[in-house]
């Protein structure tokens, strides 16, 4: 549906040049919810703005459906207003001089297709009822709350039934509770309308919950792309593992590659770790690798667990009760390991505890980079 190929975008000012986007490529299916995830300054918003036509890249190609809207090589640049997009801005960008109705109607009266008054009224009412704001149609826009403005922005972006919906950190200005609610709302809405959505965020939880696929970005590049499960459970880079949630890293050397039990053995500073090797991945003995284990993947117990592999003894350094979990730091030899323990377990300070790292949660990451 939306295809981005080898996109480059450099900002030049008098003082310096900054290459914000370096050769980004990705492809989305019709109706897919695709998220660009990364810290601020990674180029995700710039990529989105290039897709929207608000920035002009130097190289690469962007096509929406069958239409090429940008091609550096063929010197094609279709301006924003001819790209048939819907976009929600971080600031919502609700026009304060118009009513809610006029805001949502604007794309319909501005577009090239001419619609009758009744058609416009019907579509605006539809769009507003999608976001449950039908009762506020005649309100002046500045009187709305943040959450309502956000929904108006969404209705406005969807009113003219765009081929692609672009969302630029739309939830970052909402309070936590509202944000959770809107995540669900947006996801339901985009699925129902089957609109291809590009979502930009720095919030990994948002990305994991909402996306069909996630592209993790760093320094103008896509570091890794995959489904939320792939990205979270079996990241292929240390950067992804570290950015998407918390993680313990163990440096080590592969001792035996995949043996009969389907596991590889890695020698680390705390001992030998048996690690699950996903399909199609291969490690050779002697290779330097990083093993990533998420805190919630580790089982903490006071008594010795029954498991035969990956059981270590350590000292509880600290524990913090967090409601749904206890965040613990356990020292094994000289390595501090973050663990999420059951909130009901009674843990005295400096207790001696056992950690079990199930092999399925031990992910081998090639190379030490990042």
């Amino acid at each position, binding site marked *: 549906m939306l295809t981005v190929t080898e996109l480059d975008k450099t900002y030049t000012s008098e003082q310096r040049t900054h290459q914000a986007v370096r050769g980004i490529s990705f492809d989305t299916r019709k109706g897919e919810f695709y998220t660009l995830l990364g810290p601020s300054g990674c180029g995700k918003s710039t990529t989105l703005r290039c897709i929207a036509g608000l920035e002009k890249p130097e190289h690469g190609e962007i096509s929406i459906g069958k239409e090429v809207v940008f091609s550096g090589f063929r010197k094609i640049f279709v301006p924003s207003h001819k*790209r048939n997009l819907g976009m929600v801005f971080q600031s919502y960008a609700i*026009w304060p*001089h118009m009513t809610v109705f006029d805001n949502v109607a604007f794309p319909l009266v501005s577009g*090239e297709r001419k619609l009758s008054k009744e058609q416009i009224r019907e579509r605006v009412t539809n769009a507003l009822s999608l976001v449950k704001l039908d009762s506020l149609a005649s309100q002046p826009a500045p009187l709305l709350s943040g959450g309502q403005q956000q929904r108006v922005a969404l209705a*406005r972006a969807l009113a003219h039934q765009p081929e692609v919906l672009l969302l630029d950190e739309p939830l970052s200005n909402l309070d936590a509770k509202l944000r959770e609610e809107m995540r669900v709302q947006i996801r339901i809405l985009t699925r129902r309308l089957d609109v291809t959505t590009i979502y930009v965020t720095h919030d990994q939880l948002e990305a994991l919950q909402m996306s069909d696929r996630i592209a993790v970005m760093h320094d103008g590049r896509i570091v890794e792309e995959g489904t939320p499960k792939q990205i979270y459970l079996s990241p292929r880079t240390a950067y992804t593992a570290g950015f998407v949630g918390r993680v313990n890293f163990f440096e080590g050397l592969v001792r035996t590659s995949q043996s009969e039990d389907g596991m590889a053995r890695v020698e680390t500073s705390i001992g030998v770790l048996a690690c699950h090797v996903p399909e199609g991945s291969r490690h050779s003995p002697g290779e330097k690798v990083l093993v990533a284990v998420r805190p919630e993947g580790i089982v903490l117990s006071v008594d010795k667990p029954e498991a035969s592999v990956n059981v270590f003894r350590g000292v509880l350094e600290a524990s913090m009760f967090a409601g749904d979990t206890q965040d613990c730091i356990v020292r094994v030899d000289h390595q501090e390991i973050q663990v999420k323990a059951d909130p009901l377990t009674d843990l005295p300070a400096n207790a001696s505890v056992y950690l079990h790292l199930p092999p399925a949660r031990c992910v081998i990451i090639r190379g030490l980079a990042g």
Partner: protein
Amino acid sequence: MSYRVAVAVAFLVAILVLAPLVTIGWMSFVPDLPTLRGPYTLSNFSVLAEKTTYQLLLNSVIFSVLTLVIALFFGFPIAWLVERTDIPFKLTIRSLVGMTILIPTFLQAIGWVLLLSPTIGIMNQFLTKTLNLPLVMNVYTMPGMAFVQGLSFMPIAFFMLSAVFANMDPALEEAAYANRIGGLKTLFRVTVPLSWPGLLAAIIYMFMLGMAVLEVPLIIGLPGQIHLFSSRVFTLTRASSSVPQYGVVGATSVVFLAVSMMAAFYYSKVIRKSYRYAVVSGKGYRPRLTELGPWKWVGGGFVLVYFSLSIVFPFISLIWMSLVPYIQVPSIDALSSVSLGAYRYLKNQMVIESLANTAILIFTAPTLVIVLSVLVSWIVVRSTMPGKLTLDRLATIPLAIPNIIIAVALMYIALIAGPFFPVYGTVWILVVAFAISHITFGTRTLNAAMIQIHKDLEEAAAVSGAPPARVLRRIMVPLIWGPLMEGWIWLFLLSFREVTMAATLHITDNAVLSTVVWVLWSNGEFDRAAAVSVVLATLMGVVALVARLIGTQIGGRTTLKV
């Protein structure tokens, strides 16, 4: 806005701004009548060898300096009183000062001539004939001219310094008070030095304006035999005895322009520096107000003196003059000759025509300036067009061109390129001249307004399918409507009081109301001139009041080109 439109706008601005400069240069090389064909000559520049040229320059400089001294004498204390003390009626003082900008200086000048002319002046007649005192106050002198001009520049000093005082961190003054340093000492040791960059900017700005003004030099300077650059350029273009000496005008103007450009350059440097000096502490402080106590009567008295001199005296004398057939000291005898006869002149063809011309000018000129400025500012603030900063700088050039030079250049262009620019002797040449001279104000106002508008609001419209022209019309313009209208009304009022260019470009059919006053005055028809002046001032007052009621802040701007 498509690329092509943007380029067209840029070209139009370049032509409007550069045409007067190029034309002045051109005419200085042409010997006699305006022509595009040669021969060219350097003989016009013989003015550079004449002693009178330097005498003119010296006179202009003395006049400007004296003028700004007078303006600061009133402006500095009154700005300080309003911004930094508990003097009552601050709002009233502010708006009255704002209104004073709008009074055409030549009305004040006429008023003061009627009062202080050594032979006919009412005040002098009273002092010398009735009280038998020696003549001390003669308006037809350099100090007399500077006095009248200074009164009319006071609002500029006032507003520029108000901004400085309002932004000054009161903690600095408080520190002085806390160390038991008295009020006056604090004023001179702390307040004045701290406001120096702003004060310097105001001084240079007023100096520039002083070099360029025409009204006082015409009305007081000519009969007083005190010639300045501006009045010299004016008289050269309309030498009644022979052919206008455009070549000499050109050469003289080149010198004039050079001085003005240098001052403008220095001004922009000081302005940039004063931003660095600006004390913006960020925390929302309320400036500590000096309690005047009984001194407020002195302060209030001082403010009253200013308003009496700038408004009350000249206007009472104008009204009186409009009611009597010849200048006389008000007395029981004189009252018997009071009549509204002079006002009958308002039905004269020339006045009616001038009213129509005035209407055209005050509606089209501000609109032209605003439309052009919206386009220019939008390109400068929002587009990625290469060279947009050059365009922005182009738009500031008119600040450095004296209005009379813009007028002379346009007249010359109209004479040599009539078929392409058929505006000679019409009100439209005045509209164009006004637009050129005020594009700086327009673009500064709208740049500031547009920068305030969040870029997302326009981008959201573009993504919604709106082409650039529609984004401008439906999003940007409505969002800046307030400052845009404020700018329009301000220009509307300024165009109403415009006289320098109107008088310079006046032929026969393109008189506006202010030109009528000038023509009548120079014909010696004082009562009629006064009657039209009173009407002009009344109209002005009504319009300004209406504008004020609409909610426009008049006179809030600091860098006005008046």
